[in-house]
């Protein structure tokens, strides 16, 4: 009972503010798609439009090939988990989880307390509902909490109740609006794991809104990065990481963030940094400004040597167990700082002592280059002089 979701050319404005601008998105059955972006990028609004809690100004939303734009949220057969869980505080956990079923299967008269005794149909359905709630509760390990009120639960337990309420109806589409953002770091990792398991077990389609790129990267089949109401890039997590379409995608994805250095395009499309030509060329007009993106793990540091492209002073180094993050200040007129990821087994630990000078080198093929508008430029190695034989990857960068 899975459904694919398609969002076609949806736009939405609140007053003068355009929140969503011509968004199109297609989700395969059973897929886990994250909508990620900074706050205010429109990701939650898009989710609410999919749920039917907000009406789009233009465009169409279809679930399982059927347009649902005119349907109420409950008729869309979607389940939603809210950031603040949105549990009914006056109801027990059992009643919270059972509510989506009682609302659908019992009439308003049958929901009155006294009718319970009179109507055999009602008691039969109530027994069915109790069975389903019980099985979902045991799946999520909240069966011992069914009599409690939400106020008596911890954050993680409330999250499970919210998930159970979404699960109990066996919907075709799960919508999650930052479900983990109110949990502490440790619990967040644990619940992330459980959500991944849940998705694997159910095989249902999940749309997951988060501002946390780590959640998006670790959970999703595909990530859609929204920026100012548009999808800046959509693709597999590793695609967004390895081939960011814009400089803002590059900056958003990855922790610690990518290093950005200013550069120029000179004759022949050759890229220059601080007046020094790099062995790399792009498609761009000569004289235009560009930006270089360098992931922290794609730079290496070594003892300073003459002719090094980047000489930097170590400001601080952080030990993270398997690796160190070294923050350095570039010692040139352009200045700027870099973060470099160094495996902790790195032999030159003296190089990462604060205050020391180091040279920074990188593999030019690992660079991301963006034009002045922030769009990705495709790169190629600049034709080498015939007298110079191909150098090792590391030396190619370091010797420039």
């Amino acid at each position, binding site marked *: 009972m899975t459904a694919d979701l398609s969002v076609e050319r949806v736009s939405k404005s609140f007053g003068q503010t355009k929140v969503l601008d011509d968004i199109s998105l297609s989700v395969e059955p059973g897929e886990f798609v994250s909508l990620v972006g900074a706050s205010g990028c429109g990701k939650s609004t898009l989710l609410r439009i999919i749920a*039917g809690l907000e009406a789009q100004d233009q465009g169409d939303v279809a679930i399982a090939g059927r347009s649902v734009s005119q349907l109420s*949220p409950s008729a869309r057969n979607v*389940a939603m988990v*809210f*950031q603040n869980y*949105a549990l009914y*505080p006056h109801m027990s956990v059992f009643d919270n989880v059972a*509510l*989506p079923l009682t609302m659908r299967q019992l009439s308003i008269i049958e929901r009155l307390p006294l009718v319970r005794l009179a109507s055999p149909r009602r008691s039969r359905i109530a027994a069915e509902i109790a069975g389903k709630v019980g099985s979902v509760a045991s799946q999520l390990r909240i069966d011992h909490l069914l009599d409690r009120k939400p106020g008596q639960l911890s954050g993680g337990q409330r999250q499970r109740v919210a998930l159970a*309420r979404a699960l109990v109806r066996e919907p075709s589409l799960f919508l999650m609006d930052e479900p983990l953002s109110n949990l502490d770091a440790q619990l967040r990792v644990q619940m992330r794991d459980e959500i991944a398991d849940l998705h694997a077990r159910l095989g249902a389609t999940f749309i997951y809104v988060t501002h946390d790129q780590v959640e998006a990267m670790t959970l999703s089949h595909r990530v859609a990065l929204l920026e100012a109401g548009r999808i800046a890039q959509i693709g597999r997590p590793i695609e967004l990481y390895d081939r960011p379409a814009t400089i803002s995608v590059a900056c958003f994805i990855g922790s610690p963030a990518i290093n950005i250095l200013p550069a120029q395009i000179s004759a022949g499309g050759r890229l220059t940094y601080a007046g020094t030509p790099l062995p790399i060329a792009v498609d761009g007009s000569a004289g235009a400004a560009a930006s270089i993106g360098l992931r922290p793990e794609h730079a290496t540091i070594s003892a300073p040597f003459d002719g090094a492209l980047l000489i930097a002073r170590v400001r601080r180094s952080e030990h993270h167990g398997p690796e160190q993050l070294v923050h350095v200040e570039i010692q040139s007129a352009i200045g700027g700082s870099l973060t470099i990821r160094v495996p902790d087994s790195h032999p030159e630990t003296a190089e990462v002592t604060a205050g020391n000078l180091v040279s920074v080198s990188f593999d030019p093929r690992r660079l991301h280059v963006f034009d002045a508008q922030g769009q990705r430029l495709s790169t190629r190695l600049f034709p080498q002089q015939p007298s110079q034989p191909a150098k090792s990857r590391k030396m190619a960068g370091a010797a420039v």
Partner: protein
Amino acid sequence: MTDTAAVIESRPWQTARRTGKRREGATGALFVAPAFLLLLATVLAPVGILVVLSFTDYELGAVTFRWVGLGNFEQALSDPVFRRSVTNTLLYVAIVLPGGVLLALLVALLVHGRGKSRVFYEVAYFLPVTATLIAMAAVWQFVLHPRLGPVNAVLKMLGFAEQGFLSTPSLLIPTLAFIGLWNIVGFNMVLFLAGLSSIPRDLYDAAEVDGATSAIDRFLTVTWPMLAPTTMFVVVTTSITAFKVFDTVAILTAGRDGSEVLLYAIYLEGFQYFKIGYAAALTVVFLLFMLAFSVYQATQLDRRVHYG
């Protein structure tokens, strides 16, 4: 038993802790004293004096008084005027309490849904609260006047008979209750509006996704339970206000034609006839009514209220 006590006594740290506790208790009492003395002087002592007076035949200005035991209460129970004032008050409460709560809730729900015009409605409904009831009673006297008032003019236009709202005995209490409602709905509306504003938006969203599609379902699933603490408060304050009805009676009917209410009867006995002892007994009866009502509310209603 004594052995154990002796053993405990012999432990020096226990004794030290005990004196520490005693000192702590004394310090605590010292901190509580100002508030307690104030409470004693302004609330507890007057109530005590009231109860004492209710067993006497004391009259204002008299130098002596006699103990009459339960005489005042016996007299009250056999007094047709007092009995009428009790039934009148109960009738008044029976109209104003449910009407004042439900009407205010309805108005609040409607006003809450307004956009820009919300402020206008809030002010309009709240105006009667700020207007002094004594001044407004004069306006009501005119509005309800059999020959001059607009209400009767409309009734006549529609072909109904002219009604003496403030002179027909059977219409007196309902008319006063209507004015009471007019006066209290705006205040209760503001309380309900505050309650409505504090309901998280998420809950309505969740209810909608969960299948509470109709307005009635949403009201029963989210609004009504979430408003329970507000409703509880409104019920308590409205019942107290209704029991204390006085000013409209004093101005509009002066208790004639059998329109006495409890507070007006107390006022007459105490401040017109100076029968302080008897008035004190009536006040005790009034307080017992309030107490019974409050205990019922606190024990029965409160159990069903979920405090977020």
